[in-house]
């Protein structure tokens, strides 16, 4: 029996096939939800917990930042208020960077699948 000729299945391919393959692999790994269980390995439990906590903080930070952007767009804030909020967010982001570095986590580690809303990042 001959294996099916998969080349015959290709009707139209514009550009390099590898580009499509790369994106499909990326799409497959992009939507990893929170792990089904937390790794309770004593060596790594601290990092696992830090990841969970920092992810939640990052979610709240982004929600608050979006809220602030909406209020700026709405024009309900004075320049001083914007400046004060901006400084807070700026420092919070810097602090998050320090904490991530401390626990050896990258920005992508704090991603979260929000179901139908897509990914956090």
């Amino acid at each position, binding site marked *: 029996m001959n294996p099916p000729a998969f080349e015959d299945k290709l*009707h139209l391919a514009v550009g390099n096939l590898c580009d499509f393959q790369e994106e499909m692999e990326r*799409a497959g790994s992009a939507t990893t939800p929170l792990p089904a269980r937390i790794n309770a390995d004593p060596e790594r439990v601290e990092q696992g917990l830090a990841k969970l906590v920092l992810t939640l903080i990052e979610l709240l930070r982004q929600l608050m930042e979006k809220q602030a952007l909406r209020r700026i767009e709405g024009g309900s804030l004075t320049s001083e208020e914007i400046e004060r909020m901006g400084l807070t967010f700026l420092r919070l982001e810097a602090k998050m960077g320090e904490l991530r570095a401390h626990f050896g986590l990258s920005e992508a580690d704090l991603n979260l699948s929000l179901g139908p809303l897509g990914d956090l990042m």
Partner: protein
Amino acid sequence: MQSHYIYGVVESQRHPLAPDIRGLGGMPVYLIPWRTLAALVSDAPTEGYPADPAHATCHAAVVEAAMEGGPILPVRFGTLLGGTRRVISMLEEHSTAFEESLQRLRGRVEMGLKVLWEAGVAPPVEDHLPSDLDPSAGPGRRYLFQRLGEEQTSEAIRVRGEGLIQSIQTALDPLTEASTLRRFATPRLLLDAAYLVSRERLDMFCQGVERLEERGSGLRYLLSGPWPPYSFAHPLPSGAAMTLSDTQTPRWS
């Protein structure tokens, strides 16, 4: 206990498979019928088969060969059922859903379409600050206005993408029976779609995609098929079958 490896659910009255079609492990592929339905199976060891390209290709070849002789509800690679009685009770239990799905898929095939665009990966604009921003603005205001600009840019890109997807759908919808769309799966993968197309309209559908390509809106298309309608067949209900885990340890759910 003897296990059955299942390729799909078909109608019991159908064109026979070509005799040279062999299943996994070189085993003969045959039907276990129950009334109008039948399971397309081959005998298998209880530990199943490792998930490697050779086995996956063999699975695909059997499903594709079966597709030529009538509608099939393809089952994904790696599904084992127990003895003959277990297979029959599975057919019996879900007979209504299987019959409806086979009816719906008769004479229809699945076509896959992937669309890449480069707008999603355009280099980020460094400076989003509005031109009328007070030059004396402090770091806090600069930060928030920068974020606002970034957000507006990505929103504009998303709206443009939605418009492109909409125009693809408008062109292809009249040529298809059903579709599943995944939008913006990655910044570059604008659309990952599967279409259910009747065989008579297959050429028209392919020409429709070619016309889209000729519009030349900077999109790159990958059109493939005809495939068995994996995206449009109801999967085996959970509990009906055992799926091999990566470790090859059989577990009955």
